[in-house]
Every structure is written in structure tokens, then in C-alpha cells.
């Protein structure tokens, strides 16, 4: 970084200053508010689906989580396929990527991108290109948490 700065000519430096002056600032606060509300709306939909499973099926509060996650991922996959989730993602940013629906979006968008390379090497080989890291670190962190809980239970702490 320091060597790069030395190479900059006075003309380039003045241009950089000028560029910084006219650069449009990122609306961080606005983006955060958008992400907060859209993420919140997605969670409200998830809560409504949980209540739906509790109310109409024989699911308890604990077991209703599994079908809810499956439904939310399925819905986000459909919306990604129809091109709606991309628009939501452009508007809300992290608000649409952080909830579990972002996982479905990551799977299907990689599928669509590599569809032209064929079903086996294209779709099959790249389907978890983006979501693979989520699965890997999710499984690993679950293993670490389970290990800690097992040890604490063995020692009689909890």
C-alpha cells in the first residue's frame, strides 16, 4: 500500500482529491433501516407460518421450527426463480440475505447462473457454490456448541 502511494504523481493525487469530493456517499443509515424493516417483515412471515403449523397441524412450538424453515426456504427459492427475490435483495441488502430465505436464494441463483453448463457439471457441481460455506460453518459451529454442552453437562455445570 505504501509503495503504491509513492508512485502516485501530483496530477493523480489532485484527481483523487477531486474524485473524493464528487463521490456519492453510501447511505449507510438508510440501508440499515431498509434491511431492518425488510428483515423484520420476513421474520413476521416466518412467525405467521409457525403459528399456522401450530394451529392447523399437530406441531408443538419446538417442532414447528423445522417445517417453517423448509417453507421459508422453498418460498424464497420460488421467488428467486421468478426474479422477485433479486429485486428484494437489491432494495434490502443484508435484510434479505441474513434470514434463512437468503440460503434458498444463494442455492437457486447459483443454479440459474450455471444452467448453461449442463445439469451434472453445471447445476450439480455449482449448486452449493455460495451456500456451501453456510452449510460447512453451520455444521462445524453446531458440532462445537454440542461439544461444549456435552462437556458442561458431564461436569455438572448445567
Amino acid at each position, binding site marked *: 500500500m505504501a509503495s503504491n502511494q509513492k508512485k502516485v504523481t501530483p496530477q493523480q493525487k489532485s484527481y483523487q482529491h477531486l474524485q473524493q469530493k464528487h463521490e456519492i456517499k453510501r447511505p449507510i443509515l438508510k440501508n440499515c433501516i431498509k434491511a431492518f424493516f425488510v428483515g423484520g417483515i420476513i421474520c413476521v412471515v416466518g412467525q405467521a407460518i409457525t*403459528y399456522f403449523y*401450530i*394451529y392447523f397441524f399437530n*406441531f*408443538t*412450538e*419446538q*417442532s*414447528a421450527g423445522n417445517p417453517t424453515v423448509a417453507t421459508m426456504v422453498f418460498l424464497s427459492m420460488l421467488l428467486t426463480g421468478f426474479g422477485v427475490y433479486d429485486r428484494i435483495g437489491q432494495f434490502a441488502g443484508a435484510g434479505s440475505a441474513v434470514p434463512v430465505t437468503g440460503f434458498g436464494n444463494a442455492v437457486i441463483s447459483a443454479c440459474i447462473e450455471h444452467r448453461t453448463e449442463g445439469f451434472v457439471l453445471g447445476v450439480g457441481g455449482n449448486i452449493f457454490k455460495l451456500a456451501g460455506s453456510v452449510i460447512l460453518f453451520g455444521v462445524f459451529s453446531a458440532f462445537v456448541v454440542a461439544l461444549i454442552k456435552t462437556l458442561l453437562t458431564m461436569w455438572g455445570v448445567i
Partner: protein
Amino acid sequence: MRKIRSFTVMVCLVLLTSCSQNQTAKNSQLALIKTTNPSPVITDKSVKRNHVEAIKKDVSSFPQIYDVAVIKGKKGTLISYKVKHLYRFRMKQIEKDITKMLEKKYPKENFTVSSDYKIFLETVRLDEKIKSGKISKKKAEKRLQELIKMTEDIK
């Protein structure tokens, strides 16, 4: 785009009107959303109502919970309640405290305690069925045993 907008408005209108129509809705229909405070249910004829109401009052005295439902049967008593949002991280501890208090105060009885929404909802539904006469005492007792089994499976 215009079609989507008009469709969204229509769906909203349908939902709003359908929500405002049935004013005398059953308690169980809104049991998950609002406070229903159901009256205690007794499926065993030999038990006095005052006794079950006393149990409900004792459980309701915990400040962390609201909306207590009690069903007293021949083999045991099922108690379900909702936990206030700020205390939901301590649900296990609250459950332990309530069970401990009940076992200390009523040592001869068998209690099953749950904070699960499903158990609460089913308790309210059973109360409504008994009140409307749709279910006999025998069937209610059988349903209570099913609920107790369901509660124990969760734990």
C-alpha cells in the same frame, strides 16, 4: 404492475373484512395472539372447583407468566401458561420453579407443567369443547392424557 397492485389491494380488503366480520370469535381462534385467561377445566367429578382455582391462582402469582390454563383429571393435572417476552430466555428455570412450588404445596398430586403454545391452545380448545357439550367427560379425560403425553415427549 397495475394488475399486481390492484390484486394486493383486493387481498388486503378481503383479509380486513374477513377479520372484522366474526366479532364473537371463539377464544381458541385468538389464543396464540391475545390473552384469553381460560377458566380451569375439571374432568374428574370428585374434585372440587375451589381446589383447582386455588392451583390456578398459585401459578398465576408468578410475575414472569400470564394466561394460565389448568386441566384437572383423574391421573394428573396439566398446567400450561404463556411466558412474558422478556423472560423467555429463562423458560426452563421458570418451569422448574413452578413445578417445585406445586409439588411442595400439593405433595399428593401429579403435575405436568408446560409453556408450549400448542399445549396451551389445545387446553383452551378442550375447555371450549367441554363447555359447549361437544365432548363427554370420558373423552375429555382421554384427551387430557394425550396432552400430558405430548408434553412429556417435548421435554
